């Protein structure tokens, strides 16, 4: 299988605080990998480094065979990387439909086009409709984002990341702020939508992690402490210690 992402010896720190320390791993095409770890483990920082929003202190990132360590975010998106955000990051005043259209055309050359209206691109319109129908939001397509509930906005967050048909999808806490029922529903939606897309996601919700992931990576204070199948991780003594504490501490 082809390697979609390869990370070598990544370091990052904020001031004196080391957030990522010697992170190395790789992701093969089609894999669904979860990254877990307590608050402050460095999960979001890792996502920001991978998607080009934060430059690592050292280390290399290879995306689909290209060295993207110094490439800006939009360049990585053009190569096929897409991400969602832990805190809803949408275009609040624009209609839902135009949010999705913007996401679809973000990697198309027509994004610079100034003469035809955005709605004249029928293929994109069809794609947008398909995506919105999958989450039952086509009826809201003319509403601004601010008119949607938080749960619906979380779904749109995923839709926008998937709209460009990415080769590698990073989902940062897809179920943040959702109720347990909404979270289960979102997990089903992600499973339906992702198909054979390579997915790298982080979540606090371990039910979501163990239901979606084929491999789990554990991050603890900036270090990769364990990786393996969900079953292996569940019984890993080190992971149990991180999540439950040792007997002395308890």
């Amino acid at each position: 299988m082809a390697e979609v992402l390869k990370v070598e010896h990544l370091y990052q720190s904020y001031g004196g605080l080391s957030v990522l320390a010697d992170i190395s791993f790789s992701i093969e095409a089609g894999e669904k990998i979860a990254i877990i770890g307590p608050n402050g483990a460095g999960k979001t920082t890792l996502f920001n480094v991978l998607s080009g929003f934060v430059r690592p202190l050292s280390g290399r990132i290879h995306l689909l065979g290209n060295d993207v360590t110094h490439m800006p975010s939009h360049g990585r998106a053009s190569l096929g990387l897409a991400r969602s955000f832990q805190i809803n990051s949408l275009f609040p005043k624009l209609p839902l439909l135009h949010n999705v259209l913007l996401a679809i055309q973000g990697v198309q050359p027509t994004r610079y086009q100034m003469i035809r209206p955005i709605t004249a691109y029928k293929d994109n319109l069809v794609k947008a409709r398909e995506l919105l129908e999958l989450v039952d939001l086509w009826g809201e397509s003319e509403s601004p984002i601010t008119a949607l509930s938080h749960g619906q906005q979380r779904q749109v967050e995923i839709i926008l990341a998937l709209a460009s048909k990415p080769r590698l999808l990073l989902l940062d806490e897809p179920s943040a702020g959702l109720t347990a029922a909404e979270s289960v529903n979102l997990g089903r939606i992600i499973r339906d939508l992702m198909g054979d897309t390579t997915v790298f996601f982080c979540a606090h919700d371990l039910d979501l992690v163990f239901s979606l992931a084929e491999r789990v990576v554990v991050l603890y204070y900036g270090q990769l402490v364990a990786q393996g199948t969900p079953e292996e991780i569940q019984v890993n003594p080190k992971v149990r210690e991180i999540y439950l504490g040792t007997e002395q501490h308890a």
Partner: protein
Amino acid sequence: MKLQKEYLLRYTPVGVIALLLLTLPLYADLSIVSLITKILIFGLLVMSLDLLVGYTGLMAFGHAAFFGIAGYTVAILGKHYNVTSFWLAAPAGIFMAVFVACIFGLVALRVSGVYFLLITLAMGQLIYGIVHTSVGPLGALTGGSDGLGGVQYPEMFGYAFEAETFYYFSFAACLICCFLLYWITKSPFGYGLQGIRENETRARALGYNTWLYQYIAFVIGGLFAGIAGVLYIYYNGFISPEGVGIGASGFLWLMLIIGGSGTLWGSIIGAAVILVLQYFVGGLTPERWPLILGVCFVGVIMFYRGGILPQLINLWRRVINGRSA
């Protein structure tokens, strides 16, 4: 059929205004025709600012500079180089505005937010400083604080424009530019700009080169400001540093906010409100004029925060619905 009728009803005010404008010289005297010409030109100028402020979220505060550069270029070519041909001078003026916008954009877009505002303000004042210099060869070229005059209405295909016909020319030019700007805002590029205004981080994550988008928008803003500047110098025949500096740029912001930023057509309403007030009130009490302007501004900010245009649209919608209900 019902849908068509509603559609017609909704756009009735637009039709009425278009008709009034088209037949204006038939019933209005020359000073009013001249006032409306000025409103159209400033409307276009404010629209070009709205593309930056309302659509892209760029707080550009030196926008009058591009307007002034285009005007000065035409005036300098006419006065010192005897280039009076419209076909040479007008493109030269627009080219200079775009050229300077290309350079200023490179510098200003290194920063964002309030720093962008300060840098564009400084660059506007730089142009003001250049045209305000009264001494040396520069002073001889620009006329310093006296400004430059003597620009006649243009001549095309052997036809020399007069006040009324130049009104039609400006009307057509502004209409075309307004529709071009409108198209841009509805295009993939235009929505890209609005996406950047709403959420630059997400736009970058989706693949948008946000710097390039903002830069292109800045240059397009300079282009249309340049077109307005060329129209203005032919209309006014005279340009002085007052039309270039911080006062002029502030004036444009006032028009934009009063009309409604992010609405494009609101720019013309804002220009109309301020210039009509200036014409009537400024004529009555020139020394009280800034006071009255200030009161209007505060009034709009307090009671019509989105600007006048959205309020007018709401009002008209209520009128239609009241009738059909």
